[in-house]
């Protein structure tokens, strides 16, 4: 996989919240027209990385290139152009609560294209059908379940057939059958439209089903990267624990845990 085929290149990216370092010198690249999965347990830094890639967290110059451009030097106008080329599904769907589902999906098409109303109406119904929400066009977000809101959010994220689709935890809140359908839809979007899809998830089954390339993160660092087969073969202890869904059970960490408990106990005056 050459850098020239990459739509996003990340080199030595650090990230902080205040003085606390969240990401430690991350380097990887995301190839065009593939599904790239960012995996890791809660608190591994994957959502912070996601926020850098969609422009919700400022990135210093010389760290991240998208379409060959250094996003650290982008001005507000560059970000607005970029946001028109991407679709983003946030964990909670992030729908506008005062609009119906159809109005939420219509919005980007009405604002950013010259498509006539009749075509937009057909496209909105088509996108709802793709996510399994035919018949819910006139519902308000508050009338939908969490999983349905998420699917409606996906319909809005793909309204414009974006070049890059960013998806944060696509399976959370969905039943297994719906989650599997959503995985199939992401694969179809890649196949049919050549979409580049960036997925943040801790769902192993989904990640290995859809991912062409992946990274496994822990403590703000990349522990493993490559194809699903590369990651499966990793000998890193924490990667093995993650893949085998085991909590950290090394003797060293248990000792540290015991030490913490003893410290807490000793603070209590008898």
């Amino acid at each position, binding site marked *: 996989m050459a850098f020239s085929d990459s739509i996003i290149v990340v080199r030595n990216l650090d990230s902080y919240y205040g003085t606390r370092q969240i990401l430690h010198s991350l380097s990887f690249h995301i190839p065009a027209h593939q599904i790239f999965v960012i995996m890791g347990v809660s608190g591994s830094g994957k959502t912070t990385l996601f926020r850098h890639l969609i422009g919700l967290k400022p990135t210093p110059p010389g760290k991240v290139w998208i379409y060959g451009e250094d996003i650290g030097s982008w001005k507000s106008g560059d970000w607005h152009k970029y946001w028109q080329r991407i679709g983003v599904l946030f964990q909670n769907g992030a729908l506008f609560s005062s609009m119906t589902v159809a109005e939420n999906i219509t919005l980007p098409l009405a604002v950013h*294209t*010259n*498509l*006539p109303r*009749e*075509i*937009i109406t*057909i*496209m909105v119904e*088509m*996108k709802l*059908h*793709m996510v399994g929400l035919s018949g819910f066009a006139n519902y308000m977000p508050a009338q939908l379940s969490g999983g349905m809101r998420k699917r409606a959010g996906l319909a809005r994220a793909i309204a*414009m*057939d974006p070049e890059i689709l960013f998806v944060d935890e696509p399976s959370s809140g969905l039943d297994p059958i719906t989650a599997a359908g959503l995985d199939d839809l992401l694969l*179809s*979007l890649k*196949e*049919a*439209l050549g979409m580049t899809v960036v997925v943040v998830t801790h769902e192993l089954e989904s990640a290995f089903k859809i991912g062409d390339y992946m990274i496994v993160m822990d403590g703000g660092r990349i522990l493993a990267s490559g194809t699903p087969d590369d990651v499966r073969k990793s000998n890193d202890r924490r990667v093995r624990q993650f893949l085998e869904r085991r909590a950290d059970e090394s003797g060293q960490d248990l000792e540290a845990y015991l030490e913490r408990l003893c410290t807490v106990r000793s603070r209590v005056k008898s």
Partner: protein
Amino acid sequence: MADVEFRKDDEGKGVICIRGNLTMATVPAVRNNIRKLIPSDGLKEIIVDLASIDRMDTAGVALLVELCSECRKKGCSFKVVNPDEMVRKVIRLAQLEQLLTEEGLD
């Protein structure tokens, strides 16, 4: 960019050929051209030939659906022919394979 050609035979069969991209950027113009070229009545069948499409997205599929809908209102039959594999995948993504036939154009 996209071009539209229309031809009609004496038996009421009309063929729309679209060339180039049928995407969000081109659909408004392609739609206007089709409206100018196609007679409002006198057609029994409309065939859309997609052999020369370079790229199509879901806005292109929506345009085909709109044409299909207008044909149905007029009692005119509607077919989409000669999609290449990429175009077929986009139509399949929209779960509208029923728009397609396996027949090519003579």
